[in-house]
């Protein structure tokens, strides 16, 4: 930022990022551990072995800690919609209303209702009904994720709606187009499978700690095997739908893909930069090299983006300035049509106020012709259409490198478990403990790619973040930023403390 004063938009962005990242510390463990507990309890019912019941109740306690501390942290994000992002909130109200209502009424009520039975119903309800309740908690938690991700998917790929210029809002035209958008579906599968992976790392890591301390070894070994299988399978789903994600992004958010790869000049047989040091001075359109150092795999990016190793992948420069030879209309041109759309919208508003029907009709026709580029009409320079490249590039690599490491860890755990020598592999057990933290790092890195990579857009191509925000004093947002920082840090420290205490106590005797 140098000596620029941070604006309201910067603080609002920072606040949303802070609260979303904190929220995302609690959520993936809930999503994944709920299923692991359901598996543990299913094994208990199948075998009748009371050790499995002890094991289940132990992990359920940790699940409960995470759930209790994390519950309602997502509502903070909704508070911010109405205060810091009022334009955005108004414009998407008709789109987000249905998914978020379904989330609250349907998914959360299932979760909350059966949560009570799961926690307080041991020995009070039948074993079968208790197990059913545990599975319903897992289902309810993951169904909640569907609707939030449908909303986020719509931001990345707005579909199934029409803009009403009289009400200044997007109105849903087709619920199923929104709910089953390929971006929403892929987001859900990738997010939930990565959450399963995180939960597996958590169980494997805590269990490894027990083995290192030579405590509760039977429980730890059993937990590790089940979690490692779960995590190993989840890793494949993460990789598979991660690949789908890249394919989707190439089609629907090519600028995000270009930023993820630090690709400025589009090319055929585009290589993938496996590792690289981004040139921080590089800007769209200049002649500076994109990287100081890079290690590339030839044609790999073309293969991943288009499933054709010879295909053309557009770079940031193509998308900013256009490429006539490749039929790419750049941001520079789209800004011209976007400004026509903005101007036409203003003329329409004025004509309606003056009750001038012919002028309103003409303005509306002109707006409708160019409304697809509306968002570009708010940009000052074409280069603003590009997101922060370095952050997107490095976050993507952190996520992928860690995502490649985790299945190896699960595989090693299963190998040594099968050999019966897991307790002797202290190096592996220590790596498992460390991987709890690394799992969270990968989770956050993934969301940074998704949300930083879509900048400057609040709604892809239609509404930049700067226009989405409320015109309030930056100081107002600063105060709440630091309140949230304090509150969430306190919650996180409380969770870690309570978790460590429960882990120290171990399963009930």
């Amino acid at each position, binding site marked *: 930022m140098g000596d620029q004063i941070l604006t309201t938009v910067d603080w609002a962005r920072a606040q949303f990022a802070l609260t979303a990242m904190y929220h995302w510390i609690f959520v993936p463990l809930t999503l994944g551990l709920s299923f692991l507990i359901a598996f543990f309890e299913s094994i208990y019912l199948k075998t009748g072995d009371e050790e499995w019941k002890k094991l289940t109740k132990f992990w359920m306690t940790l699940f409960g800690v995470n759930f209790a501390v994390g519950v309602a942290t997502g509502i*903070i994000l909704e508070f911010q919609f109405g205060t810091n992002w009022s334009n955005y909130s108004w414009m998407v109200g008709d789109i987000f209303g249905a998914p978020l209502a379904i989330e609250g009424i349907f998914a959360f009520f299932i979760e909350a209702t059966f949560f009570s039975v799961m926690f307080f119903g041991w020995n009070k309800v039948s074993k079968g009904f208790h197990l059913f309740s545990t599975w319903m908690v897992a289902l309810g938690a993951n169904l909640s994720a569907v609707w939030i991700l449908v909303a986020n998917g719509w931001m990345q790929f707005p579909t199934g709606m029409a803009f009403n210029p009289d009400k*200044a809002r997007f109105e849903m035209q087709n619920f199923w187009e929104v709910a089953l958008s390929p971006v929403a579906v892929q987001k859900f599968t990738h997010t939930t499978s990565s959450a399963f992976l995180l939960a597996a790392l958590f169980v494997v890591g805590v269990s490894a700690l027990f083995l290192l301390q030579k405590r509760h070894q039977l429980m730890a070994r059993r937990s590790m095997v089940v979690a490692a299988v779960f995590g190993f399978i989840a890793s494949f789903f993460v990789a598979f739908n991660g690949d789908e994600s890249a394919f989707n992004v190439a089609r629907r958010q090519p600028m995000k893909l270009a930023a993820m790869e630090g690709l400025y000049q589009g090319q055929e047989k585009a290589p993938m930069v496996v590792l690289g040091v981004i040139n921080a001075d590089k800007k769209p359109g200049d002649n500076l090299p994109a990287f100081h150092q890079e290690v590339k795999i030839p044609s790999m990016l073309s293969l991943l983006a288009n499933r054709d190793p010879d295909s053309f992948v557009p770079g940031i420069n193509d998308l900013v300035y256009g490429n006539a030879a490749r039929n790419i209309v750049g941001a520079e041109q789209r800004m011209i049509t976007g400004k026509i759309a903005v101007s036409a919208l203003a003329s329409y508003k004025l004509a309606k106020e003056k009750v001038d029907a012919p002028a309103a009709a003409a303005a509306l026709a002109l707006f409708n012709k160019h409304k697809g580029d509306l968002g570009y009409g708010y940009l000052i320079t074409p280069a603003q259409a590009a997101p922060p490249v370095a952050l997107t590039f490095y976050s993507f690599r952190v996520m992928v490198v860690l995502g490649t490491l985790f299945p190896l860890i699960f595989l090693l755990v299963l190998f040594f478990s099968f050999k019966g020598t897991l307790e002797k592999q202290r190096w592996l057990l220590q790596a498992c403990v460390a991987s709890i933290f690394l799992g969270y790092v990968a989770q956050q890195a993934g969301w940074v790619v998704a949300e930083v990579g879509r900048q400057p857009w609040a709604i892809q191509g239609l509404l930049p973040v700067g226009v989405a925000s409320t015109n309030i004093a930056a100081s107002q947002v600063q105060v709440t930023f630091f309140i949230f920082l304090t509150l969430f840090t306190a919650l996180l420290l409380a969770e870690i403390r*309570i978790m460590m205490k429960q882990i120290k106590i171990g399963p009930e005797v």
Partner: protein
Amino acid sequence: MVVGRTLWKIIAIKLFIMFAILKLFFFPNFLEKNFNTEHERAGHVLDNLTKAPSAP
């Protein structure tokens, strides 16, 4: 179960801070607070949408 009591306390304190303090004093709904009708709110948003872009 001691941990249960601790967790309920955390939930209660958290929800109180969120709804009785943050929502009430720091997070008013801007459009509902400053405009009376849907027409006025739409008009305000349209004003923002039709303003010339400001410096980055």
